[in-house]
């Protein structure tokens, strides 16, 4: 495990990460409850700024977006970003949510991580969450004629395709 030795010096603990990131944007909420990673809740209007800084800052250097999950918490819709630094190997989770179920919209992060292009299309397909500045936002798996967004909790599965 010689590889790991080099990372130890620059690896940031959750506490160090929290101290650094909260100095950028004061209104962020941090929690480690119920998760093995440090979680940050961010307001939609600060999302892009935060994520761009998480990647570009040399101390955090979160250059690997390894998972982008659409989420329906019942009342709110949102997106969960799992980020890892390939240089320092620390991991962080960023969450954003909105109560607007009619027209949920967040800023796209395609310009920060190119993998987001496909992942955001998947979220749009299943949750109906729109992403500003996405180059090609359209359904990815389902047909264009499909009505509704099947992974939303209030989706009515009329022909019992999934839920028996």
């Amino acid at each position, binding site marked *: *495990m010689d*590889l*790991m030795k080099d990372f130890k010096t620059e690896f940031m603990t959750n506490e160090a990460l929290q101290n650094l990131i909260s100095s950028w944007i004061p209104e962020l909420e941090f929690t480690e*409850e*119920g*998760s*093995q*990673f440090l979680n940050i809740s961010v307001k939609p209007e600060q999302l892009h700024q935060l994520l761009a800084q998480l990647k570009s800052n040399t101390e955090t250097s979160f*250059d*690997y*977006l*390894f*998972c982008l*999950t659409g*989420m*329906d918490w019942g009342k709110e819709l949102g997106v*969960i970003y*799992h980020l890892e630094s*390939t240089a320092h*190997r620390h991991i962080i*989770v960023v969450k954003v949510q909105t109560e607007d179920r009619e027209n949920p919209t967040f800023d796209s992060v395609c310009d920060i*991580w*190119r*993998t987001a*292009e*496909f*992942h955001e299309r*998947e979220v749009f397909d*299943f949750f109906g969450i729109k992403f500003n500045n996405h180059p090609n936002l359209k359904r*990815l*798996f*389902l*047909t264009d004629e499909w009505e509704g967004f*099947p*992974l939303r909790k209030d989706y009515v599965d009329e022909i019992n*395709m*999934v*839920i*028996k």
Partner: protein
Amino acid sequence: MDTTIANSNFKSEEYFINMGPQHPATHGVLRLLLTIDGEIIKKVEPDLGYIHRSIEKMCERDSYQQIVHLTDRMDYLSSHINNEAVCLTVENALQLEIPDRVKVIRTIIGELTRIASHTLWWGVMGMDVGALTTYFYGFRDREMINDIFEETCGARLTMNYNIPGGLMFDIHPNFVKRTKEFIAHFKTKLPEYDTLLTGNVIFQKRMKGVGVLTKEDAISFGASGPVGRGSGYSCDVRKYHPYSALDKVTFNEALKTEGDSFARYQVRIQEMWESMSIIEQLIDNIPEGDVQVATNAVIKLPKGEFYQKVETARGELGVYINSTGTKNPYRVKFRSPGFSNLSLLNHIAVGGKIGDLVASMATLDLVIPDIDR
């Protein structure tokens, strides 16, 4: 000089063709919309969903034991490792202490799965670029692994050998003997792969400099597995987030810096050697003990979020489970390696020829149910 057809100013025109969803080189129902100018590719747009089964939605109605069995229908060539990913997530959430015997057996079978997947890939990749013999060599060796699986698990492909808490049952008495026989056999056969294909000049011309992916782009596109490592991006989950018995073995991470199709090819060949080395370190030292720990018949995870990464034959598989404390998960997300690896296909194929696209796709080693889920 008179204007003839030969020296008139032809205008080239872009047009689009469908590649798939039934194209043999896509190895499954993947449709690619190619915008081409002559034979030069201008754009590749994948059209997905032909084999989408909404596994994530089905997980929300299923128990944790049932979810395990859905996952080997994603990347069916890494079925054991997919099962293991869900089991590890559930076990970590329940804070179960898993016996060492289970960990070692899981790792051995996981590496056998990787070899089986790579031999199949090697066979069909050769076929994609016109070397039909490889197909038979690859399947001949993979057959021996499938026989080992069949004897122990009763299944050859979708094995369902893992359960939350351990393994379905103990290994077959022949398992150790036959695994050793396979390793001894494959050590003589893997060099044949090189003799037959790797050194072939025609093959190398099809592969070298084709579908080049830089390290920065590999990270940005979320590439993982041999696709990332062919670009010099050290991303082996087994190294950085070791699970099961992988922290007890030593192995080298296969890395190449060229980033072209040939580099990805070489990474997979080297990985087969490394997997054999891992198996050899463990096969004589399988600890005695139970193969299961007791779990409740109805598993309820505590409230919270759980994430587990594993390294399948294709790269990093992530399992995200959000639990509200009931017997069903509230939300499950599978971060599949093929999905991210496919997203970079347009990037590496533009500017190349259609034949190069086939070579690039072959070395991305896509499994379509893994992408569609």
